[in-house]
């Protein structure tokens, strides 16, 4: 019997057609996603100083300090 | 010498039996070449001189001191295999104690190495000699030529012995060798001799002279031992694809062991009783060696991932 689809991936990440720029904004980077998940914050709630407005590791660290 | 030839032959025969029984994955045989091998190696001082044998040189390594047990442990790839602990295929001889340098599969690589080993003796002014062996096809590659040239330039104490057994797997001599192997030496400024590779005394004599020359600092010699490969190239080869049974049978009449036995019997060195006794003794040794090897443990898989680098 097939198990429920895993969360990671699901029905594809629907991301194949997205652009790098959109993804940078939305998903930032692995370390930022990790920190955001660890602290229960939304990446979109942080202002980003990285390329194209990306939330960088420094940005989220600063955000978490405040 | 007769004993060593018989030892090599009986061990080899046992190897084929183990292969047919499915116990040995791979056999590469010396049958037919025992005279060339034993005759040459008998001139060396094990542990002093060096040997770079090729995979077929069971007769050489056994003359220098490897035993049927060593051979069969290697055949079956057991941990106690002195060549490699079961890492290499059979025929990839190695012994620090006997100065048998770890053999490889790529044909011809041994020659430049042998030249270097000989050069070290010369640098230190010692009288050590290096015997480097290979098949006739090993003379087709550049490594042989480069080594011959260095040996000739610097009068290196190296004896090149080519066991020309007529075939390189399926390729006959006429498609392998231009001119003559023995004849090549002159171009490098040192002697080259062709000998009947199935006549152990002839090879012994040629090698004796070559080794003596080298010890005296007079430089290299090339010996072409003309012989014949009595079995297929290896247990992976079906030689019916490229040669006739008649040709093999014709050479069987010139079997080096039978021939030497006849000589020894005729000259009263050996009588039939001693011959039989010797054969029984050898067979018993081989039998014991086989039982030992068949029951010997393999190395653990984890050992196969280790020992890649020598400790700094």
């Amino acid at each position: 019997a097939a198990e429920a689809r895993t969360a990671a991936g699901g029905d594809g990440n629907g991301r194949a057609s997205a652009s790098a720029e959109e993804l940078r904004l939305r998903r930032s980077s692995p370390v930022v996603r990790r920190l955001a998940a660890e602290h229960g914050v939304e990446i979109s709630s942080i202002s980003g100083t990285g390329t194209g407005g990306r939330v960088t590791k420094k940005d989220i660290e600063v955000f978490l300090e405040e | 010498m007769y004993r060593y030839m018989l030892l090599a032959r009986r061990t080899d025969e046992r190897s084929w039996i183990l292969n047919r029984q499915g116990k040995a994955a791979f056999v590469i045989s010396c049958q037919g070449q025992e005279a060339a091998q034993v005759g040459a190696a008998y001139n060396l001082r094990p542990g002093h001189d060096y040997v770079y044998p090729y995979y077929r040189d069971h007769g050489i390594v056994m003359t220098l001191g490897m035993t049927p047990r060593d051979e069969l442990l290697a055949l079956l790839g057991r941990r106690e295999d002195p060549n490699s602990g079961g890492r290499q295929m059979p025929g990839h001889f190695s012994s620090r104690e006997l100065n048998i340098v770890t053999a490889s599969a790529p044909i011809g690589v041994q020659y430049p190495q042998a030249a270097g080993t000989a050069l070290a003796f010369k640098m230190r002014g010692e009288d050590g000699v290096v015997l480097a062996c290979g098949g006739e096809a090993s003379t087709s590659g550049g490594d042989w030529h480069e080594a011959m040239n260095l040996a000739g330039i610097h009068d290196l104490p190296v004896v090149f012995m080519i066991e020309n057994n007529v075939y390189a797997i399926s390729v006959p001599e006429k498609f392998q060798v231009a001119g003559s192997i023995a004849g090549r030496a002159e171009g490098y400024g040192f002697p080259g001799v062709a000998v009947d590779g199935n006549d152990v005394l002839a090879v012994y004599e040629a090698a004796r002279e070559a080794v003596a020359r080298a010890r005296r600092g007079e430089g290299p010699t090339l010996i072409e031992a003309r012989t014949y490969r009595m079995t297929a190239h290896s247990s992976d080869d079906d030689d019916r694809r490229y040669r006739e049974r008649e040709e093999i049978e014709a050479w069987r009449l010139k079997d080096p062991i039978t021939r030497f036995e006849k000589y020894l019997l005729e000259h009263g060195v050996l009588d039939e009783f001693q011959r039989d006794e010797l054969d029984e003794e050898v067979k018993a040794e081989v039998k014991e060696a086989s039982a030992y090897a068949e029951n010997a443990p393999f190395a653990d898989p984890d050992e196969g991932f280790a020992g890649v680098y020598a400790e700094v």
Partner: protein
Amino acid sequence: MATKSLLQAIHDGLAEEMRADETVMVMGEDVGRAGGVFRVTQGLQEEFGEARVFDTPLAESLIVGSAIGLSVNGMRPVAEIQFADFIPPAFDQIVNEAALFYYRSNGAYNAPITIRAPYGVVPGGALFHSQSVEAYFCNTPGLKVVAPTFPADAKGALKSAIRDPNPVLFLEHKKSYRLLKGEVPDEDYAVPLDRARVHREGTDLTVISYGLMLNDVSRAAEKISVEHGIETEVVEPISLYPLDKETILRSAKKTGKTLVVSEANLEGSVSGEISALVAEHAFEWLDGPVRRIGGPNSPAAPFAKPLTDAFVPSAEKVEAAMLDLARY
């Protein structure tokens, strides 16, 4: 269509090209009279003669060098290196000569040679009949390196390689010769050398593989689909150099998770280049680390059966890695 083994497919590809083009010739050790140590060239000398199916002396640099020279003067040689482990003596003729002929002569000369060689671990092969040599050649502009795994691809890719005006190193996974069988079209067809093959589409992870391990990957993909509902996209590079970056990246971006699987010694293998490609150009799409499975960093592969068997990563290990990455 007919079911053929990898070996038969390669044999047929060779024979058909030789019938179609009289300049195509085969050369190497034991390829003629004996039909090759693996029988790949069986029957060819009978059909095409001793000149076109030619037993060379035991000299790999000569085999490749003379193939280049033959190609200069109107022939189209398919040179066989008996085992990839014995390709090193020919290294200079391949990387400094064949690969550079066209560029260095500003297009006046080219070296349309194909070099075939069997690679990969087999029982009893030990240290010199088991190696994976592709990484040696995958940093050489001017050379093409291909390693199609399955029969249909192999036949078509071999034809492309032979027809290609550039030198092509055509690697054949020897353990797959008889083990892998597949449907092969009867008609003449060629598989382009610059396209990776997507064997199976999926959305959850991308596994990039070649050689017999690709077969393990394909089986594992079916298994985890049935058992866990995980859909794997299985991609085969076909060309190891230059890589089809477009197909690889498209898949990596689609799934967000990439695993590269091969039996070559891991460190310095071609899988490193594949991973690097993904890590740089599909970064924003990554949902998980770019992972690799490879052979241990020890010589391929020790002779004794228990040691040989431990060398190539097992099918179980592959499946576990796929699950693990899918679940990351």
